[in-house]
Structure formats: C-alpha cells, structure tokens
C-alpha cells in the first residue's frame, strides 16, 4: 500500500473513527466530555480536509483515475463488489469540497449547539454523515455509491429529527426518509439494469462498455438513476421534503440540505455521463425536471417569509439549475455550479442564525423586521445573497456553448425564469431581513465565539468569490482543465454559434435585472390586496401553498394506500375469524379499528379547497362563479382562473378598445346611444359569459366524474367489493373449508400434472 493509498483511506477513515468514538462514548456515558467530542470531530474532519487537498493536488498534477481497493465486500457468482475508492478529478474536487465545508460547519456547530441536549449525538451523526458522503463521492462502483447514498440518507433522517420531542420534526424526518426511499427504488432498478447489462457495477467496467450500449436500455438506466437523483436532490415531484427538512439544526441544514447531500443527485448524473451520452432522451428529461424544479423553487421562494424556507427553496431552485446544466450536457458547469453554490449557500445558512440570534425569537424575518446593523454578518449575508443569485449567471457563460440543442429553448426559458426568481428571492431575503423599520434597533455586535465562526465562514466566502470570479466552466479555464478529463462536455453537441451565446447571456442579464426590480410588483399580487392581475394573485397564493405538493401526494398516494391498508386489515381480521377462533370482534364499517393507527406521512396543510376559495374570491369575485357544491377540482379551478384572466383581458384590453371605439363614435356621432349600449355592452359581456359557461360546464364534469365517480364511486365500489370478499372469506374460511382449500390445491396439482404429462 503506497502513501497515496493510505492518505486516500484516511479521508473517510478519520470521520468514521470520530463518529464511532463519539457515538459509543455518548451512548454509554452521560458525562462524555464535550471538549473531547468537539476536538475529535473537528480535528478528524480537518485532517481529512488536509488529506483531501493533498489528494486534489496530486490529481491536478496527474489526472489519471486511480483506484484504491480495501477488500472484497461481496462475491456472488460472477458478480462481485469491492470496497474500493476511485480518485479522479471529479471525486477529488467533490472530496475537497465536502471535507472543507464539513469542517467549517463542525467548527460553527461547536458554538451553535453548545446549549443542546443532544450535543454528542449531533456530532456523532455529523461525523457519520461526512463519512457516508465521502463514500458516496469516492466509491468506485454504483453499489458503493448506493452505500454512501443510503448512509447520508439515514444521517439526514437523524438530523432532521434531531429535536426528538418535536412532533413536526419527527414527521418531517419520516417524510424525507420515505420520499428518498421512493427515489431509491429507482436507483436500485438502475443498479439492477447496470449489473444485468454489464455484469458489474464498477465504473471502470460500466463506462468502458457504455459506448456500445443499446440506446433504449441506456435511456431506461438513465431514467431509473434519474429517479434516484430526483429523490435525493428534492426535484419535482419529490421536492416537498426539503423545505420541511429545515426542522433540523441550522448547521446540519447548511451542510446536508444545502451544500452536500442534496447535490448527490447532480453528482450521480455527472458521474454517469457516459451512460447519459447514449441516452439523449433521458438527458432531455433531466433538463426538463431541472427546469421545472428551478421554476417551482424560484416561484415558491418568492413568497416565503421565513429565512430558512427562503433558503430551502433557493436551494431547490439552484439544484434545478444544476440538473438543467446536466441536461444540456454541460456537466463541468453543473459541477462548478455545485461547488460554488455549496460555498455560498453554506455562508448564507451560517450567517442567518447569527442574525436571528440578535433579532431574538423565531426564524421569520418578517415578524421581526427590525433595522439592525451588525457589520460583518450583514455584509456577508448580502454578499452571499448576491453571489447565490449571480453564480448561475456566471455558470451560464459556459452553458452558452450548449445552446443549439433540441429542446434547449424550452429548457432555457424555464431556467431563465428560475434565475429571475432566484435573484428575486435572494433580494427579498435581504430586504426582508434588513429592511424593516428602525423602531426596534438592537445595538449589540456579535459575541466573540460567533465572530470566530464567522471568520471561518468568511474564508469560505473568499474561496467562493474566487471560484465565482474565475470564468468557471469556460473552455480553457482552469476549472475545465482540472475536471475536463473526467467530465468532458457532451461530445454529441454541435458547436453553437457565438451569437447564441450573446443572446443567451443578454436574456439572462435582462431576467436578472427584472428579478431585482420586481419584488415590489410581486408583493402587490398578494391575494389580500385588490388584485390588478387576478391570475398573478392566484399564482401568488398557489406559491404560498407550495403548489399543494404535499397535499397532492397525501391525496393521491398516501390516502389510497392508507385506505387499502385499513381494508386489508379488516380482511385479515375476517380471515382470522374464518380460519380460527375469533379473538377480537371484527370492526364495523366506519368505526375506528382498535389496535390500528392511521399513518400520516405528511402533515396536514390548509386544503386546496380553502386556498383556492380564497384565491377565487379575489380573482373572480365579479363573475360570481359558483359550482353547485363548491367542490374543488383541477378542471373547475383552471377554468375559473382562466375566467379571471379573461376578465382581466376584458377589462384592460377589450374594455379600453371599446371605450376608444365609443369615444370615436361619439366624436363622429355616427353611432347612436342605443347601438352602443345594445351591441357593445353585449360584446363586452360575451367573454365573461363564455368563461362562466365554461366554468359551469367543467364544474358539472368535475361533479359528475371526479366527485361522484372517483371520490364517491371508487370507495363505494371497493367497499362493495370488500363486502363481497369478506362474505366469501367467511364462507370459504371455516376450518372445514380451509381443508377444502388444501384439497382444492391438490386437485389443481393433479390436474396440472395430468396436463403436463399429456403435453
């Protein structure tokens, strides 16, 4: 084992040792010294950071990939997996980023967490997280990547639920875990396809065979891996766990839910680029998902009033942009964006609490709003906010090279709007935090320990600025020089004309400026104000409700599953009764089943109905659209929103045109008063009338199809089916009939045997 191997092993080994020592010490003794915990954790991570820098330097000197094998993990038939680490430019950059930020966060946490009960638990899980994240980025095969992937998942679960006595924290943790698990199914399927196709999950083998891969199969693998990435990186439709993950302590939010873990999805896509090269369809989906999420995160981030929520949605949006970059084939840009974003977002997260410390109380900046000068944190905060808004802009430089690509315009449009929203969100955050009234000024500066942490943080900021100022993803830049061999830009992309780049940059610049100018305008769209633009008001309200993502999942996934489970439980009770001695009386319909608790994975949010009613009341109150039962449903409400928009158009456009016509008619006196009232009023009333009819029609459809058919019909039908089943079970399942069941199987066997023998 060479010195290089040893250093590589030390990088994940030290955090693991720290995690084990802290974990065991904390579990077995209440009085495990805090100083020891702090020092062992921060020291181990610092040492592995130094080792990572050394490895990075080695890799810059010689970018050939190197593999360090530890031992054979499992071997089944021809298929085997080693515990082995791959060091190439991509993983070296990621390792340096992860250990560096982890170190700063660990130092920061020493002060931040000093009053917490679970001090040791926090540090144990933090070290474990660093270890798992390092395994994730250093692993030499997909299976090892998955090991780290699940490891960071479980650490994230433990840290979101860190405040164990908070119900909402426990709920958020469970939601994050289960949603990630949905993505993991996709990841597992991807691994499965890879193993069955290539006979191995090692990157070396897979990427060597990738160029000859069947395109359909490549698309399948790409999409399966993408599902995993969507879960981990909180992309649509599995996006709603990330904002709720802010229930965890702020340092863990900074490290896990902003800088490192959530970027694992981007890493996965960038790492798998040889596979995606063969799967342009899958790559297009990557871009679409990224663009949609960037939009979603940006728009929802606009209306948040809680610093951590703004930060979370900003993260969602930025991650979406990284996926977008991957989707355009600009992997190096995505990784650049990833690293730069990690620095700036950590900075934002770590300065936010020190600001809040001084504002006293909760994390809702609008509630406090005191003007307050704190010097360094203030400047850092503003600087980081600017940087977060600007990073994608810088990254876009290189993206310009990939413009001329099918589907790119749509993706770019989405990305552009998201950029606008992200810029806006950053600005809003600053405004909301610092721009309040002067009345409740707090004069105190930072306390010394916070200041120490802040110096570390500002170092990050410097590094980040350095990264940001250098032209990141451009061809010929140092970044490309390092990362190039590992992650080349997609080779199948045609070279874009420079004009595209200029246009693209111009558009982005415009959008950015627009983003900084619009907050005032957007604030005017709040539903409680007289709406100049009803559709925008609806959008505002929808964003406020985070587009009902949780609600939709609860309604269309969790509730049916829950219903099915309860029904099966009843069926099982009947099976029990039918096959043996009844112990508990079978539950009647509608009565809660004893011994059965209803699971709720997502917390209840104000229903779609309530919010839409609110929106609708503002958006189209003049139209007085009412459905028979006020039932909420997508078709109905879409139409209603359309009606609102139509009304606006009617008032602003048609009305003015007509007024102009009228005026000119008056002036020329060519039209009588009668004709004006009879004809023009009718014409101008036609559009809302049409919209009204349309809304009524869709309400009727909604009532007939969705309400009666789905909401009432399906449960009734299944209840009837369950009753039939239960009756059948009762008859079938008596001990005597149980024997009959067995005999029947035997007869089936005999018949089967006869059929087979006659074949």
């Amino acid at each position: 084992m060479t010195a290089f191997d040893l250093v590589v092993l030390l990088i994940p080994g030290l955090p693991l040792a720290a995690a084990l020592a802290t974990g065991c010490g904390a579990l077995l003794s209440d009085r495990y010294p805090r100083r020891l915990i702090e020092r062992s954790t921060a020291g181990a991570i610092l040492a592995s950071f130094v080792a990572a820098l050394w490895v990075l330097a080695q890799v810059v000197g010689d970018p050939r990939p190197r593999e360090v094998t530890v031992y054979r993990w499992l071997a089944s038939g021809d298929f085997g997996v080693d515990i082995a680490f791959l060091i190439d430019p991509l993983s070296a950059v990621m390792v340096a980023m992860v250990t560096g930020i982890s170190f700063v966060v660990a130092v920061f946490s020493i002060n931040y967490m000093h009053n917490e009960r679970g001090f040791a638990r926090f540090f144990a899980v933090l070290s474990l997280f660093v270890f798992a994240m390092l395994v994730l980025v250093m692993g030499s095969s997909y299976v090892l990547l998955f090991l780290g992937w699940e490891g960071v998942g479980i650490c994230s679960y433990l840290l979101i639920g860190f405040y164990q006595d908070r119900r909402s924290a426990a709920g958020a943790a469970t939601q994050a875990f289960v949603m990630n698990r949905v993505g993991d199914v996709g990841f597992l399927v991807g691994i499965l396809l890879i193993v069955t196709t290539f006979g191995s999950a090692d990157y070396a083998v897979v990427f060597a065979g990738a160029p000859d891969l069947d395109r359909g199969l490549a698309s399948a693998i790409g999409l399966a891996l993408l599902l995993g990435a969507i879960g981990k990186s909180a992309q649509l439709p599995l996006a709603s766990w990330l904002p709720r993950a802010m229930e965890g302590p702020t340092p863990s939010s900074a490290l896990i839910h902003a800088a490192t873990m959530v970027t694992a999805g981007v890493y996965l896509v960038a790492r798998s680029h040889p596979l995606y090269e063969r799967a342009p369809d899958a790559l297009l989906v990557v871009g679409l998902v990224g663009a949609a999420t960037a939009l979603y995160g940006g728009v929802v981030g606009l209306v948040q009033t809680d610093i951590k929520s703004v930060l979370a949605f900003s993260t969602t949006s930025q991650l979406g942009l990284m996926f977008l970059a991957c989707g355009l084939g600009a992997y190096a840009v995505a990784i650049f964006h990833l690293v730069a974003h990690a620095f700036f977002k950590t900075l934002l997260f770590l300065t936010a609490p020190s600001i809040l410390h001084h504002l006293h109380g909760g994390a809702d900046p609008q509630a406090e709003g005191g003007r307050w000068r704190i010097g360094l944190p203030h400047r850092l905060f503003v600087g980081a906010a600017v940087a977060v808004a600007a990073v994608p802009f810088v990254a876009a430089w290189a993206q310009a090279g990939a413009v001329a690509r099918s589907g790119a315009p749509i993706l770019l449009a989405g990305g552009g709007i998201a950029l606008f929203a992200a810029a806006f969100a950053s600005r809003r955050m600053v405004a909301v935090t610092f721009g309040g009234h002067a009345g409740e000024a707090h004069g105190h500066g930072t306390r010394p320990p916070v200041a120490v942490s802040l110096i570390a943080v500002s170092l990050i900021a410097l590094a980040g600025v350095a990264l940001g100022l250098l032209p990141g993803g451009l061809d010929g830049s140092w970044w490309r020089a390092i990362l190039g061999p590992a992650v080349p830009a997609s080779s199948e992309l045609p070279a874009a004309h420079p004009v595209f780049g200029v246009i693209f940059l111009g558009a982005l610049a415009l959008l950015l400026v627009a983003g900084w100018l619009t907050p005032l305008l957007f604030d005017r769209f709040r539903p409680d104000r007289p709406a100049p633009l009803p559709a925008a008001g609806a959008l505002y309200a929808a964003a406020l409700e985070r587009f009902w993502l949780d609600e939709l999942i609860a309604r269309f996934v969790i509730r049916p599953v829950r219903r099915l489970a309860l029904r099966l439980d009843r069926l099982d009770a009947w099976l029990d009764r039918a096959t043996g001695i009844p112990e508990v009386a079978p539950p009647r319909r509608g009565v809660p089943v004893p011994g059965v608790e209803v699971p709720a994975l997502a917390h209840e949010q104000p229903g779609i109905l309530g919010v839409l009613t609110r929106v609708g009341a503002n958006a189209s109150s003049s139209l007085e659209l009412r459905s028979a039962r006020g039932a909420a449903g997508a078709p109905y409400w879409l139409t209603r929103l359309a009606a609102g928009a139509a009304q606006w158009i009617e008032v602003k456009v048609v009305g003015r045109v007509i007024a102009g016509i009228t005026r000119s008619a008056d002036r020329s006196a060519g039209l009588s008063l009668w004709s004006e009232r009879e004809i023009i009023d009718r014409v101008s009333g036609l559009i809302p009338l049409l919209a009204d009819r349309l809304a009524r029609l869709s309400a009727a459809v909604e009532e007939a199809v969705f309400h009666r058919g789905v909401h009432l019909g399906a449960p009734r039908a299944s209840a009837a089916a369950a009753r039939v089943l239960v009756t059948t079970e009762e008859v079938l399942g008596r001990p005597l009939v149980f024997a009959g069941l067995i005999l029947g199987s035997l007869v089936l066997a005999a018949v089967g045997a006869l059929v087979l023998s006659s074949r």
Partner: protein
Amino acid sequence: MTLHEIGAAEQIGFPILSLLILLPLLAAAALRLLRDERLALGIALAGTGLELALSILLAVRFIPDVADVQFVERGPSLPLLGASYHLGVDGVSVLFVPVTALLTFLVVIYAEYSVRARAREYLMATLILEATLIGAFVSLDLLLFWVFFVVELVPSYILITRWGTGPARQGAAREYVRAMLVGSALMLVGMVLLARNHADFGQGGAWSFDFVELLRTPVPAELQSFIFFLLFLGFAIKAPVFPFHTWLPKVLEQGPIVGMSVFLIGVKLGTYGFIRFIIPLLPEASLDWFWLVAAFGAAGIVYGSLIALVQSNLRRVLAFGSLSHMGAVIIGIFSLNFYGLQGGLLQMINLGVTGAGLFFVAGFIATRVGAPELPALGGLAPYVPLLTATFLVIALAGIGLPGTSGFNGEHLIVLGAYQAHWTMAVMAGVGTFLTAAYLIRYFQRAFLGDRLAPAAKTMADLRPREILIAVTLGGFIFWVGLYTTPFLQTMNGSLRAIEQRVERGSFGGTGAADPLELLRYEVRP
C-alpha cells in the same frame, strides 16, 4: 445429481452434529433432574454457551465453495421404510446452526428478565426447541427431518400456552398446532410418494427417504407436480406464505416475551424446505410452477407490508412484516437462478437475526411498559437512547440499508428475480419501499414526537444483559452487511449444485429422447 459426502470422523474426529442435537437435550435433562431453580439459569447458560461454541466450530471447520455434504454421520436404518439416521450439513444448512444456537443463547441470557415464574421449565422447553430445530436443519433423511419438524410442535406449544403474555394464547397455540399438523401431514404424504418412487426407479429398488439417494432418482413429471404441491403446501404453512399465514400474528402476539425469537428462526424451516428439498428433488416441477409460487410471494409482500403499516402492536407489525419479507425470500428462491437462491438464503439468515432482534426489542419494551402497543409509547428517544439506537439499527437492517445485513440479500434477490422475470423484480422492489414505510412509521410513533408515553420519564434504559444482546445483534448485522464474502462463499458450492440441478433436471441430462420410457425399460425389463 450426486453429492459427495465427507464424514465427520475424517473431518473433525467426533460426531459433532449428533453432539449438537444431544447437548441441549442433556442440559434439559440436567435441569429436570436437578430441580434447583437457582442453578437452572447457570446450567442452561452453560449448555447453550457450549452449544454456541460448538456450532461456531462447525461453521469454522466447514469447507467453503464446495457442494459436498460435510460432517456426515450415518446411523442405523429402519429396514422396511428405508429411513435412516443420516446427518450432514452443506452450504444451504450450515449457517442455520450457529444462528439458532446464538439466538437460543441470547434468549437464555434474557430469561432472568423475561420469565417471572417456572424459569426452569421455560429453559427446558427452550432447550428442547433448540435441539429439534438444529436436528431439523442437519437431517439428511426426509423422515428424520419430518420427525424433528413435528416434535418441534411440542416445546412450541408449551412455550406459547404457559409463558404466553396474551389472554388468547391457548387459542393461538391450538391454531398453530392445527395448522402445522395439516402441513406436516401433507408433507408426509409427499415424502412417502418420493420414497415409493425410489422403489420404482432408484437403485436397489427399495424404499428410501435418504436425501442423497433420492437426488439420484429421477421422478416422473406427473408425479413431480403432485409431490411438489404436497410439499409446497406443507412448507408454505410453516413459512408462512400468504393465504396460510393467519396463525403467525396470533402466535407472535400472544406468545412469550422473547422466547419467540428462537421460534422465529424455526419458522425459517418453511423456506428452508423449499431450497433444501423441493427444488433439488423436484426440479422440473419447480420450473413448471415457479410463477405460481412467485405470485403467492408477491401477494404476501404487498398484503403483509400494507397491513403492517396500520398495526399498533410491534409484535403484530413484526408478524406481518415477516410475511412480507418471506414473500421476497420466496421470490428470490423461486427465481431458480444462482443470484436469487443466494439472495434468498442470505436473506433467510438475515431475517432470522433481525426478526428475532426486533422481537427482542419488543421484549425489552414489554418488560418495561407491558405490551408494545403504540398508545403506551411515544417520545421515548430522549429517555432511552440505547433502546432507540438498538431499534433503529435493527429496523434499518430489516429495511435493507446498504452496510447492514439486509441489503446484500435483498439486492441479490432483486437481481435474481429480474433474470427470471421483470415483474418479480418489481414486486421484490416494492417490498423494500413498503418495509421502510412501516418500520420508520413505527419508529416515529414509538420513539419520537412530543406525545410522551406515560411511563417514558421513569423508563430505564438498557441493562447490561440487554446491552450484550443489542451489541451482539448489531455486530452480526454490520458484519454480514459490510463483509459478506465469507457468508456467500459458504453457500456458493451447494447453491451452484442446485442451480445446475434445475438446469439439468432430475434425469441428470441423460440425453435420451424420452428419458422416462428409457428408465422404465431399464428398471423393469
């Protein structure tokens, strides 16, 4: 297929398998004779400890990567039936012996806390249960296996009825015995048919229940399907497979606090039977009917895990979770390829430990607050961090997190199932997701949140013996999870033989146009 045998005498010098069966019985006899309550625990500990050491010796001396049957002992045989005392282990069975011994050892360690009255008799029953289970796992004679399989009912019945915690334990025990008797009767018929078939087609023309002999004997296709269903039903009731599972939740809910941990490894005899007897002895029928069995497994996965999602009693969660996990194991085994078989077998070992482990945790809770019902729990984590950590680690192994013992087995099952048919892989994959949902949900309800259990603040964290149990189980979980190669190597040889057996069929690839006619002609000129 021909299996070579390596005798115990040449391999280790003494009849280790007989000793493994006898030792617990001797300890039980000592308990019976000494009638001293104070010495009881010591004797039982010594007996199970020695047993554990011996079983580890067995696993260490086992030669990996070969298909041979090892540590073979042959005793006298019944003249007319052709049944004989024939013991031996191969890659399929060898790992069950130390796992059984380990769990019994842990149960005995915990007996001081879990049993209030008549501890001596409780220990006797546990020891006899251990002896019968190990006997069943090392039997190479079908009739001998059957005898152990049936005798196992006696200590189980006594354990459930006398030390069960639920009010309905009598009914649960009776239902268990009834179900097992039906199953074993069907199984016996199937085995007798196999023995008779040996008289028709086998060497020597006499009845034989000997597993190694029967492997050499071709079985006609129409008979195979019939025997397949007889044996399948018998083992399916034990496993349990989906529609035949109703006894399991009751037994687990009503049974003794931790004694059921050993019982749970006994339940693995069902799936063990599939891989040990059904597939090698009836390869053609297995190939004909694997889809049907996989469908049963898939139904069990969804059905079991969905019901587990709404249970409030940890033991019932475990029972239905076990049903769901067994579904995945069955899918793996009946993929009938190497990956699937290996995944299924590894997962059986893993579930034997993690299922029993969660049952231990349920016992830890039960000795503190009574039944592990959700209404009595909640917000425990800050008060009992060790218990919380133990539950979490074992639950994660059940979920199949990579790095724990659950992952590799599950991964291989999905891989094997995919090669058999993609729908089977989908069903096995769905299982992993639902398992996460119900175990994490239970964890959240019982250990996190602001709704404090009434007893939370006074609840004691793990005591030294419980820590020992937790550390042992955790160590096993991470050992299997992070260094799986030795476990897989142990199984490799035998499983490869089974895979080839399925490929070649029971006629051994004679190449004859109609092998059956050829054989009939040869045997009965």
